[in-house]
């Protein structure tokens, strides 16, 4: 009697579970069958009326039916949940090709970028990075660098003079002097910064540009060291082996003074229009620090030696990125600056 009731409930419930079309219908089945007042509980109450000898078998039967129904329910319930999640997620479709809100990454000025690169390089060589004022005294810009008043070398740098007698520094070399005034040798330093020349502006001339001055003072510093150092440095800057040569160049604050040329990066020394077929490109002035300069800064030239060089940062930036008009660098045009 009970046996048939149980099997009827089981098959009937499983059929209802299987045919439930919605999560709500399924829930109704759970309430009807598995709920506190559901059919299974009814049957289990009736079972309690059976004689004790029949109870174990009947209980087993009922439990098996309950488990079968619960398993079917859970499976079906999970199916509805999965479907619902799928539907929700599908509805959340997004066009990821749309532009995101908010600003894009900004761009650092190309001079800033190359300057940082060079600064890091020098710091790794143990160089200090020093700063100096953009408005300089005549003494620091010229006299202390062995360029006295009325020396024709002053013509090499057309100067912006300020009312009152100071000037806009024409090179970063005065920071050498300030470095020597501030630190005792041995000394390794660079000074990147803005410099000024009283020149009309065109595609290849600017009145405002950037240099990196470098100096090393130690007991034993020779031309051989200078060449080694410049070669190592330039290889790191250009990220390739560079061929360098030194030839005489006149700069009053060094003796001997050099122009350093590198093999043209376009033709690798074979000759091309960029290097005017010479295979060489003039890159930077350098030399051994003139003993007068050391002496003026209170350093004994018999004991200490040094080399110094000046790297044209603006020029390097133009070479690196193939910029053919120097005016772009200080033109503030974002269509240009956003390329870097």
């Amino acid at each position: 009697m009970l046996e048939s009731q149980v099997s009827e409930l089981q098959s009937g419930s499983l059929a209802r579970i299987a045919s439930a079309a919605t999560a709500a219908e399924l829930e109704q089945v759970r309430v009807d069958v598995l709920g506190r007042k559901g059919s299974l509980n009814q049957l289990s109450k009736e079972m309690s009326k059976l004689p004790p000898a029949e109870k174990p078998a009947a209980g087993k039967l009922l439990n098996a039916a309950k488990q079968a129904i619960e398993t079917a329910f859970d499976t079906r319930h999970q199916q509805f949940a999965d479907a619902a999640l799928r539907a929700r997620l599908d509805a959340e479709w997004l066009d990821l090709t749309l532009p995101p809100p908010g600003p894009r990454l900004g761009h650092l000025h190309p001079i800033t970028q190359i300057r940082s690169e060079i600064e890091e390089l020098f710091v790794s060589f143990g160089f200090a990075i020093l700063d100096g004022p953009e408005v300089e005294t005549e003494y620091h810009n010229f006299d202390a660098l062995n360029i006295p008043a009325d020396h024709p070398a002053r013509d090499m740098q057309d100067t912006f003079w300020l009312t009152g007698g100071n000037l806009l520094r024409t090179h970063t070399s005065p920071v050498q002097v300030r470095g020597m005034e501030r630190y005792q040798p041995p000394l390794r330093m660079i000074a990147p910064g803005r410099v000024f020349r009283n020149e009309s502006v065109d595609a290849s001339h600017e009145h405002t540009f950037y240099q990196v001055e470098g100096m090393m003072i130690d007991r034993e510093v020779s031309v051989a060291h200078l060449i080694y150092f410049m070669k190592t440095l330039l290889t790191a800057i250009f990220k390739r082996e560079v061929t360098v040569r030194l030839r005489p160049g006149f700069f009053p604050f060094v003796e001997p003074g050099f122009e350093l040329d590198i093999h043209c990066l376009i033709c690798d020394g074979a000759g091309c229009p960029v290097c005017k077929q010479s295979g060489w490109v003039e890159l930077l002035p350098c030399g051994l620090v003139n003993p007068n300069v050391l002496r003026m800064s209170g350093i004994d030239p018999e004991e200490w030696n040094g080399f110094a060089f000046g790297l044209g940062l603006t020029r390097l930036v133009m070479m690196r990125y193939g910029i053919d008009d120097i005016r772009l660098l200080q033109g503030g045009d974002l269509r240009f600056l956003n390329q870097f």
Partner: protein
Amino acid sequence: LKFSYNWIREFVEGLDTPAAELERRITMKTAECEGIETVGALLADACAARVESVAPLDGTHNVVAVVEAGRYGRKTVVCGAPNCRSGVVSAYAPVGVKTVYGVQSDGMLASGAELGINRDAAGILELESQTGAPLPGLAPDNIIEIDNKSITHRPDLWGHHGMAREVAAILGNPLRDPVKLESIPDSPSRVRIEIPDLDLCPRYSALVFENVTVKPSPLWLQYRLTAIGLNPINNIVDLTNYVMAEMAQPMHAFDRDLLRGNTIWARPARAGEFIVALNEERYDLNPANLVIADAGGPIAIAGVIGGYDSAITGATTSIVLESANFQAASIRKTSAALKLRTDASMRFEKSQDPVNTVRGLARAVELLREVSPGARLVGGLADCMKPMVAPPPISLPLDWLTRKLGRPVPPSEVREILERLAFGVSESAPGRFSVTVPSWRATKDISVKDDLVEEVGRMIGYDSIEPRAPAILATVPPANEERVFQQNLRALLAAQGFTEVYNYSFVSEDAARAFGFEPADHVTVANPIASDQALLRLSLLPEIWKNITENAKHLDTFRLFEIGREIHKSAEGLPDEITHLVAALYNKEGDGREGLFEMKRVALCLLPGGELRPAEARAYEHPARAADVLWRGGTVGRLFELHPRLVEGRAAILDIDLRLMESLAAREKRYTPIRRYPASAFDLSVIAGVRELAGGLSDKLARFAGPMLESIEYVREYSGPPLAEGQKSVSFRLTVGSAERTLSSEEVGQIRAGIIEGMRGLGYELRV
């Protein structure tokens, strides 16, 4: 400066190195060459030719000339020169056949300008040569151009003979000296020289010539001058220029008959004196200018230019030839003050060799014989000079030389190099040379042993020095915190979408005024390129404003920034350079509110915990949208919207004084323990006037909340019904807690009640 290969070859025996190779060698060992130019190419094949006949070419000013052209035979050429006439001997150049006005013209008759001999293009050259003869002393030449800057320190290289000395030393060829000092007779001079200050004029030498004929120079001389860029004028002037170009010794010729008296002074000008110079300009002089004067006054500006009144003319028959030496600084000052740079002043300002004055005169005597046959030297040399003291020899330790170059050079090679450059070398001690310096290198160029390092180094070739790694101490360099600080700010701004610009340090008066600055408050440039670039910026804003208006032409929205220095006048010493950061955020559309708050967000990224305090707007600021930026107790900058009259669209701007900001930046951080006991939060809404600052309300609430307040956050604000017109309700969420325990709900309630009571005491109603 231009150098003629042929001219150099006159002094360097056996010179056969091609010009291009010579240029390279000079560049590597002496001075920078800027290129080679071939001149007089037509001269290679040109010859003297006689015009046999001429026939007019109808309808043109040309003639058809039949010429007898030596080895080229009889040629028909069309010629437009007015002096093309039958019987004249001119220069024929076989340049090929072309048809001119329907006539086959085979080759050409050439003018001096066409051949490169001089600048005379008015007519064809007229020669006194045999038909068919090559043009006398004229051949194609290579002109090597040297960068003037690279010979600033070498007075001797401002003439061909000096350059020839270098070439001879480089190549190892013998050098020929064109000077014959014996050309100057030893007899009393006809002029007297007076030099009151021998420091300003260390030497003045002169010769007097009579029976001079002023006429054009021989063609070879005209060609030489033309080839190096000088303009042939007449034989006397050309002679002085020739000696200058050869010996680096500037000279001047006075018409002796136009001089007043027999005494020549080299003296400072007197106040009020003036001179009309050869260029027919009048120059007012002062005692800082050295002049050459006769009894009547200045006849030349010493070392710069001659006077018009005593200049050589076609009528000149007697000349005084000046060959002097002047103090470089004095000449340079005068030349700069008068804005008059001449071939002479360029040389004198390099410190010329006083020994050279007489050498120049001796050379001139020889040349004058050729350019003005019959000219007669009268009397001997007038020569007034400061006693010349030979500089002491330089002691050159050879091991020191090795230490400097980083490579040993055999003593014999050092000696050979120096001797070829005319230094005197003796071994004063083992391993030590005593070196005497030739007079032309001793004026400024070479005085210490370091200078000799360069002489040896350049001649052995720097390529011969093996690069060597320096042995240096491994040390950590002193940090530059300012740079790190600025780099971090740059990176942060770029990450927030700002692009970095670099602007000039100059501003115009108009731009300065637009931003409320008085032009007089600026540091000013005494010699600006243009009048609108005469002030040094007191603020980065004027240029940023320009960036905004320029970029707004192309872009609807953008962000940019600059880190640069403001330059402020200071009472003493150098101006105060204060690094500022200015960032700008531009939107073409909108009411500007969004941009300002975005800029405030960015400001708070830069300045965590910073606050804005609304402040009275400046002329260029939106009158209702300007605030001081407060940070760690300092007013570090300004945040505002650019006044809408200055820009189409909206621009939010942040301007921060980085020096002040860096000084306030925390150097150290300490950890605070995280609270262990839960905090409680509640909301309060304050009713206030619509322009009441939320920041002010927040401060008041915080004050009444007392020490248990952990945080107070703005939630929202509301205006509209049921609030009265002109009122708003501002809601805040307050979080209170204790480090020791969990607050009871009664305690939280007391804090809340205390706030409400306090605010009511200030006249605020609260919506609770």
